[in-house]
Every structure is written in C-alpha cells, then in structure tokens.
C-alpha cells in the first residue's frame, strides 16, 4: 500500500490551468467520446442492414434534438482527436517539441477542430450553397 506520510507530488487542482494540460486531457476525453460513438455507428449500420423501417427509425433518433446534440458533440470530438492526434504523431517523430511550437500547434488544433466542425454542419444544413 502507498505510504501517505511521504511527501506527494502536488495534486492536479493546485496547478494553474494551462493550454497544454487542457488539450492533453481533452484528447483523452474526446477519445472516450469516440469510443462510445462506436455504439451508435454500429447500430446505424445494423439498422441499414436490417431494412428501410429500421433505418428510418435509426435516422429519426439521430434527427431528434438529443440525437443532433450527440452528433454535434461526436463531430467536434472526431475533428479534435484527429487534429490533436496528428500533433501527437508529429511529436512522436521528434518535431515541434519546443514550448513555443507546442503552444502554436495547440492553438492551431483548437482552431482547426472548431472550423472543421462548423464547416461540416454548415455543409449538412446547406449553408454553403455549393452542392445544391
């Protein structure tokens, strides 16, 4: 068992919040959101394989307000995890590891995830006017 009379490293809550730690925990949180999103994805595919009625029911659930909120959250989680995952792969290659680069790439990931999410929903709602 742990010996709690020893000095411990500072707890999370005494740290000043910084971009790097927020992005790190958000990467893990969005990963878990995407893991959970595998359930509706597989359910949607099974509904499509079952038939038109089951598929219409699945799409009605996704089109409801909770369904749309879920899809909005999943789409942001997808784009964030994608962009920040690429940032992690760049780090694994040994690049962008200096503090200014870590912050620049971090803010870029936040901006890219928001822009891609907004663009996706603008396209779905027909706000871009391109596909007609």
């Amino acid at each position, binding site marked *: 068992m742990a010996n709690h009379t020893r000095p411990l490293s500072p707890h999370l809550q005494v740290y000043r919040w910084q971009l790097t730690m927020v992005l790190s925990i958000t990467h893990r949180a969005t990963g878990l959101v995407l893991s959970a999103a*595998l359930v509706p994805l597989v359910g949607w595919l099974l509904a*499509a*394989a079952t038939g038109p009625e089951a598929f219409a029911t699945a799409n009605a659930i996704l089109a409801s307000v909770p369904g749309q909120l879920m899809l909005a959250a999943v789409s942001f989680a997808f784009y964030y995890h994608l962009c920040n995952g690429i940032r992690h792969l760049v780090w694994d290659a040994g690049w962008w590891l200096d503090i200014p680069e870590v912050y620049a790439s971090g803010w870029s990931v936040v901006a890219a995830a928001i822009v891609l999410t907004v663009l996706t929903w603008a396209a779905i709602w027909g706000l871009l006017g391109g596909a007609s």
Partner: protein
Amino acid sequence: MSRRTPLGRALGLGSAKEGVQHWWSQRTSAVALIPLGLWFAVSLVLLATDGGLDHAAVTAWIASPVHAVLLLLLVATACHHSRLGVQVVVEDYVHLEWAKVASLLLSTFVHFLLAAAGLYAILRIAFAGAGA
C-alpha cells in the same frame, strides 16, 4: 552498467512483457484512421446533402465495392484503436486489480462485439445484391 540479461535485452520486452507493441499498434492504427476517418466524414456529409440519408441511397453507397472495403477497414481499425486507448485509460485510473482486469475484459469483449456486428452489417449490405 546494465544488470539486464543479454537475452532480456535482445527480446526487448521489458517488465510488461509486451515491449513497444502497444505503442506501435496505437500509432499504426492512428495513421490509418487519418485518411479513413476523413473519407468517412466527407462521405457522410455528401450522403446527407445529396440523398437525405434514405435507405436505398445509403445501402447502395455501402454496397459499392470500394466503399464496402474502406468501411470494413474503418470499423475494424477504429475498434482496434479504441480498444488500445480505453486500455490505457483503464490502466491509468483503475487501481484495484480485480476491477482493472474486469474492466479490461469487458472493454475487450465489447470492442470485439462492436467490430463483429459492424463488419457483419457492412458485409450483409454488400452481399445482398449478389445473393438474395
């Protein structure tokens, strides 16, 4: 001077007995999911804007050989990547040995179930035109 045995150093498996296999598998699936995920996101937006996600349009899209194979790869790779990620989260936060082992077993079974169900749904749609 290292006290590791020459055999232990050659095998390179360390105390976890699996070496860097988990790390590499997570990165390999991450790299694969960049094009697969972007392709699926763009496809979903195009499907939603073109056909309004009706059953005939979506199943015809899935049944096309290229789409079916890419979708099989996406579901399999996403389930694999998700299982690796959830495993790390469980190992980080669940410290009771029995609870950790139970969580890892549950995660493994659920991920294999999701993968099997997803692959079955895609194959059933893809082969529906050829067989029944």
